[in-house]
């Protein structure tokens, strides 16, 4: 892999992204709207829920509003990063194929997009983490932010996979909306999880480990090493699948 090719690819991808003003604005508007709605509608009364990744018997009692803010922040980062990832890998796919015919390696193109995606994940997750401080301060702020970065990592990889798999945009959008909505936007809410059955299904979904990192870090002193590592591994697995599909869809590099 030639690093200068990756750098040029990343530079061009950033330029394209920065020119898409509406998307850039939405990256900040959507979490702000989500937070505002939660802050306006959720009561402050205490609520008890299970920290599922710590043990089945570990409960914490916290403000319902604080819990909902963490939950909605995770959902917002998951939604946004998966859509951005899907767009990055799908947009101009035929022009990228032409670039490969002209001498780019498919791996250089995909790594350049991945580098930009990591940047987007960091910016969005850090914005959402910092905005949390307007409403309350998590017990371990840095680790809570790590959970938000990790949900971006896992859902970003999922977005890449969906973008590489589906040729038409509608299918890709539906697959992202479906999973992000049911997983990050519903099942990973610890309040729902507390009474859920077949919880092994919830534990197998992409947002489970990152959600646990943020929830455990925000409301307890329990370690988060295992969910952090599991999140990294989950994201990596999705990423490898995405790279395989992407490579298969691209023409061979002739050198």
């Amino acid at each position, binding site marked *: 892999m030639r690093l*200068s*090719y990756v750098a*040029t*690819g990343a530079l*061009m991808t950033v*330029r*394209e992204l920065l*020119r*898409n003003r509406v998307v850039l604005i939405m990256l900040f508007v959507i979490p702000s709207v989500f937070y505002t709605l939660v802050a306006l509608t959720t009561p402050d009364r205490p609520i008890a829920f299970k920290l599922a990744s710590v043990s089945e018997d570990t409960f914490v009692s916290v403000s319902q509003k604080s819990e909902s803010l963490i939950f909605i922040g995770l959902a917002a980062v998951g939604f946004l990063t998966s859509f951005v990832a899907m767009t990055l890998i799908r947009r*101009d796919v*035929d*022009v990228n*194929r*032409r*670039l*490969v*015919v*002209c*001498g*780019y390696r498919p791996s250089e193109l995909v790594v350049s997009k991945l580098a930009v995606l990591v940047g987007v994940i960091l910016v969005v997750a850090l914005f959402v983490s910092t905005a949390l401080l307007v409403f309350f301060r998590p017990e371990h702020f840095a680790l809570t932010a790590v959970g938000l970065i990790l949900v971006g990592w896992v859902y970003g990889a999922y977005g890449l996979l969906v973008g590489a798999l589906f040729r038409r945009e509608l299918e890709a959008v539906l697959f992202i909306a479906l999973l992000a909505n049911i997983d990050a936007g519903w099942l990973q809410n610890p309040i729902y999880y507390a009474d859920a059955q077949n919880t092994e299904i919830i534990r197998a979904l992409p947002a489970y480990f990152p959600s646990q990192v943020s929830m455990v870090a925000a409301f307890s002193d329990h370690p988060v090493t295992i969910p952090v590592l599991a999140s990294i591994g989950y994201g990596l697995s999705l990423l490898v699948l995405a790279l395989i599909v992407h490579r298969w869809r691209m*023409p*061979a590099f*002739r050198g």
Partner: protein
Amino acid sequence: MNDRALLTINDIAKAFRGTPVLNGVDLELRSGQMLAVVGENGSGKSTLLKIIVGLLEPDAGAFRIQGTMGYCPQESLVFENLTVRENFQFFGKAYGLTDWRERSVRLLKRFQFAQYADYLISKVSGGTRQKLNLCLALMHDPDVLILDEPYSGFDWETYLHFWGLTEELLERGRGLLIVSHLIYDHDQFSAVHELVDGVLRCD
């Protein structure tokens, strides 16, 4: 100048889901030659072209390109959210050109669209896109230039520029292959091949 085989295609075959599309295609393009491959819609022209440029693998047969290849697709395959100049930069990198700036300036002048160099592609006319589409195939001065349906892809101005350029390219020993459902200016071509039933027949 006709002394060097730039593109040699031997017995290329390709089938899709058991339906043969190419049944042993042979073709040789030598330096200083301009060849046309014509055929009805569905005759396999696009399949042959995709195999030559590397977008598709053949089931059987072999081909060899001596030197570098430039490919001008029918549709303008350029980055919409980049400027004309940035497209040159990106493709220049793909070709491994360190002097992409100088080359792009020459082409911008030659094809008379230098005034749009810093415009986003999404803001320029179809004619400017077509010029850029062709220039991106030319910027590394390829030994073999392959054009897909240039008659329907080019506007009149680009078409005239193109013919002016072909003469110069052929004099310099380059080879041109034009793939189209029909061609005009037959006498400009070294040979016209028709793709019928998956094989090439020379007119």
